[in-house]
């Protein structure tokens, strides 16, 4: 009886530890930045490709 109880307690401890580890992993991997902010921080390339404009000007000539 007591041997069974020890086994059950050890398995419970292992399950609890695994659950805790997975919860911490989930917290660390999920982003806490709200989606509007995520859209706002999308990178922006400010460079204008001059070659395209020159090509368009040539096409008009």
């Amino acid at each position, binding site marked *: 009886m*007591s*041997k069974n*109880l*020890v086994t059950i*307690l*050890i398995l*419970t*401890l292992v399950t*609890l*530890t695994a659950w*805790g580890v997975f*919860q*911490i992993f989930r*917290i*660390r991997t*999920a*982003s*806490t*930045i709200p989606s509007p*902010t995520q859209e*706002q*921080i*999308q*990178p*922006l*390339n*400010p*460079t*204008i490709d001059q070659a*395209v*404009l020159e090509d*368009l*000007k040539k*096409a*008009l000539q």
Partner: protein
Amino acid sequence: MLPYKQVFQQYETLNDKSKGSFAIAATVALLIILVLLIYPAITYITKVNKEISDAKGAKVALETKLIAIEQARVNLSQYQEDLKLLDSALPLGSKVADHVRNLERLVKGAKLTLTNIQTTNVPLSTPALNSKLETKKLPYSLVLNGTFPNFQRLLENLESFIRISQIKTLNIEALSKGRIDGSLEMESYFFGSGAVVEVSSPESETTSNNESGQ
């Protein structure tokens, strides 16, 4: 007698093996209780650390974006006059009426007769600037009648046409007295939002004698 004293008395009556098992069970039970007690604190600290690191990353990204926006504003003022060119090449919204008018002008300039122009599923409204804009295709087909040199001239005109377009297929059928019937499957591009369902006409699945793109 107090309850814990009864427990001690019972414990004293156990043999060594049972005492060992009881000690292990009590230790594991204590560990379980400790894990349960410490779990909320650990999750809270992890969440706070994660929020701090995410906020630092967002701050850096926002600062970089502000610099990029400022640079874009300078570039925009520098190329303000050329924006009309860009709008002609890749307009906001399909602007199908203007496009058809331009195509008619090109066809007339090449001395051809436009007998049929067909397009399907074209969004006519101009999308809002704050909507999520994407490059969309405007598929259409032209059926023309005329001589081969005039047809060739039209193709040259289309190559120098400012609106970004692509000739997907070209089908030529000879008629009498040097005249030909030509059908063009084309795609022009525009900035639009929402889904545009592409429906290919039966001609696009038939033979293509020539293919050209701009």
